[in-house]
């Protein structure tokens, strides 16, 4: 480390040269003048860009003047090229804004593009003042039986950083490609992206460790220590981690999935190796659920096979009515509700024949499919309202709806729910 420090401090020796000092002074004047002008007369938008162009042109002219006069100029030229690229990164917003979400674009720019560009600029500067190949070989220490030098350390850090932070966009791109090839759904695509991302992260980390020259015996020793730690302290985290990997590969819980959690319909928003984030529709809450919950408990999913959910409402009708007419009315009323699927069409059933002598209601049921399981309460409510209106218009009944417990129907691929609507006996 001391050698690296001395190498860097040694660059000050270039300040003995007039050609270097004059270039640095010109750069300093040109860069600070724009900052001064911007602070004194702040502008934005097109005028600000004009000022930047003026700055670049000024610097470029200075460099050109030095070159024509036969003086060294490359430091100024390098800065102009660097600034052009740096300012050019701003225009990436316009390029990517159509294809990337705003937050994704922000992440891409702040976590990947600008750091990568800064590293590129740093290496460019290094090539002028020193030999990057030589600096890369400067030893910085000893780690787990291996000698580490600057190059190994920087390369391992860069790859690990890219694997952990920047693997998201390429994973999504690859997953999107696989989605197009296999014609899979959106949830599958998101799960695939996650699996790819975790694979990239694992590969990147392993490569980094290998680059640092950590021997396999050292890795095994670390793994042994970890297993001891897992046994005592971090069992839950390890369990969540393993569950997360298993669930991702199994594909039972994926982003976009609609499922029941604690009796409430929820949508899976995101997944990490430790926990899954759910959005609960009824109170707009976000739940962070440890992965082992899904691994060890029964999970009710509406979207694992297909996204449809079967619903059922029951309706008491006076016992003297013609069942065929009532069923036709119920089916017709449900068909007109937005969100109720017509294929398969709503199906009315007579569950129990009433008793005209004691005036016990006949019990009818209407079964129908909806495309969005999360919206089941709203759609069921609309169906019941429509039935009530159509029966009321016929003067048949005054109905009181009552939510019934959900009933699973294994005959339908996916899980359905039933709802009971009951009316007081008349």
């Amino acid at each position, binding site marked *: 480390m001391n050698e690296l420090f001395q*190498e860097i*401090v*040694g660059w000050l020796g270039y300040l003995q040269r007039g050609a270097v000092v004059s270039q640095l002074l010109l750069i300093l004047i040109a860069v600070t003048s724009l900052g001064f002008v911007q602070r004194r007369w702040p502008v934005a938008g097109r005028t600000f860009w004009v000022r930047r162009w003026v700055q670049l042109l000024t610097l470029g002219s200075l460099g050109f003047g030095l070159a024509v006069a036969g003086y*060294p*100029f490359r430091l100024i*030229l390098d800065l102009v090229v660097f600034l052009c690229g740096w300012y050019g990164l701003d225009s990436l917003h316009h390029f990517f804004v159509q294809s990337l979400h705003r937050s994704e674009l922000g992440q891409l720019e702040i976590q990947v593009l600008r750091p990568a560009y800064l590293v590129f600029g740093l290496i460019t500067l290094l*090539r002028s003042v020193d030999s990057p*190949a*030589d600096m890369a070989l400067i*030893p910085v220490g000893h780690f787990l039986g291996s000698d580490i030098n600057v190059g190994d350390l920087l390369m391992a850090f860069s790859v690990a950083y890219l694997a952990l932070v920047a693997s998201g966009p390429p994973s999504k791109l690859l997953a999107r490609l696989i989605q197009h090839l296999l014609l899979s759904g959106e949830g599958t695509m998101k799960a695939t992206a996650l699996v790819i991302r975790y694979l990239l992260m694992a590969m990147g980390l392993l490569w980094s460790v290998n680059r640092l020259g950590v021997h396999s015996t050292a890795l095994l020793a670390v793994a042994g220590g970890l297993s001891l730690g897992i046994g005592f302290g971090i069992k839950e985290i390890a369990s969540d981690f393993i569950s997360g990997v298993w669930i991702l590969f199994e594909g039972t819980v994926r982003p976009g999935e609609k499922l029941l959690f604690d009796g409430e319909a929820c949508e899976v928003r995101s997944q990490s190796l430790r926990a899954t984030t759910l959005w609960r529709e009824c109170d707009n809450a976000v739940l962070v659920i440890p992965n082992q919950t899904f691994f060890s408990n029964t999970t009710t999913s509406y979207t694992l096979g297909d996204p449809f959910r079967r619903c059922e409402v029951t309706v008491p009708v006076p016992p003297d009515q013609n069942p065929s007419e009532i069923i036709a009315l119920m089916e017709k009323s449900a068909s007109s509700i937005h969100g109720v699927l017509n294929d398969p069409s709503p199906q009315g059933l007579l569950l129990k024949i009433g008793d005209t002598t004691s005036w016990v209601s006949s019990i009818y049921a209407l079964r129908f499919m909806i495309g969005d399981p999360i919206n089941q309460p709203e759609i069921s409510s609309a169906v019941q309202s429509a039935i009530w209106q159509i029966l009321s218009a016929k003067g048949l009944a005054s109905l009181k709806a009552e939510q019934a417990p959900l009933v699973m129907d294994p005959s339908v691929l996916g899980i359905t729910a039933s709802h009971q609507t009951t009316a007081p006996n008349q």
Partner: protein
Amino acid sequence: MAPMLIGLLGCRPSHLDHGLPQNDALKGQIFVLIGTNPDERFDSLARNDAETRLSILLDTFRSLHPQVRVQVQTLPASDLGDVLLRRNRAGLSPDLVIVRGSTAMALQQQNLIQPQSYPPGPLANLDQGSLHRLRLDDGRFLALPVGLFPQVACYNRKRLPTPPTTIEDLLAPASRARIGLPLQLSGLAWTLGSLGALDSVKAITSGQPPTETLKQPIAAWLAWLRSPELQQRTVFQTSQNGLLDQMGAGRLDWMPCHGYDFDRLRRQLGPAFAVAPLPSGPGGAASPVTIERVIALGVNSSPNQRRIAKAFVAFSINPVNQRDLALRSQQELSVLNNLNLETSPSPILAAMMASNRQSNANRQLYQTIINADIRSQGQMQYTLGRFIYGEIEITKATDAFVETLRPFSPRLP
């Protein structure tokens, strides 16, 4: 910290003078760039070896001039041209460049180093052939020689208790030596003398028409490279690094090498590492290639840095330092003619000196061969490789080989 920064910037407070007269004292910082050899791998070991060789001179120089700070940078030879071009344009070129002679000539052709005039006194004892090659038409020198790396034989003492002195010994069934040879003319040039093809190569490179009489020894030399007794026990490699790896791993027992390979082999072979002169043959003595290490000035130095750089150049060819360099490094020889190292016998030095004597008579030719090898990058190697592996016949290989040699003049700028 503060004195170091002040020193780096070339300023010095009076309290650092310790009251001594400092009118001619050197102070400030210079940058030295070492270019590794083209056939040398650039890694931590090569970097350490290169800087260790230089440190023999630098440590003494710094002890004489404690206010001089020297920053050493090492670079692969293949990157030198691009890096120097870039750094010269930025005003950040090194003050001194240490490379092999042929590389310095290439850098000079691109104006990447600064030729310099030197007083005749210190140059009087330098090898005049070297100076002739490094002198420009205007009398300035593009660089000065500082060390010689003669080609010798590196061998495994455990496998070969006695080094072979003739090619016949080397290939004798009793020797059981596993031989490594490079597929480069500069690396194989020692066999030209042993097998009697040297005069033909000299004649062709000097511009004589390639008659059948001149071609015949070259054809015989090529035939030897493909002879069964050689091929049965020889590994040919396109790079010296490949040979060093195999030798270090114990898969080879004998190979031609230079001083800058010694450290790597010594680390791997330990006490089994040994050095001997290259074997002679039916055509005469071996004709090994000696590589010159030269020192050149950079183009962007400040006047103070140039003064320090020139002082270091003069220092490095001083007889005391040249002797010290040869004796302590045990890897390179002095460039001074009148330096007697015979009084300090060492098997390694003795082998290098014997090899250097063999190469002295042909130094000009070797420069031509080295340049031909570099310039025809791939062509000679390709021809040799195809011939050795049986893809082309000897007549075609001889013609192609002679053609590769022909365009190059023995006198380079």
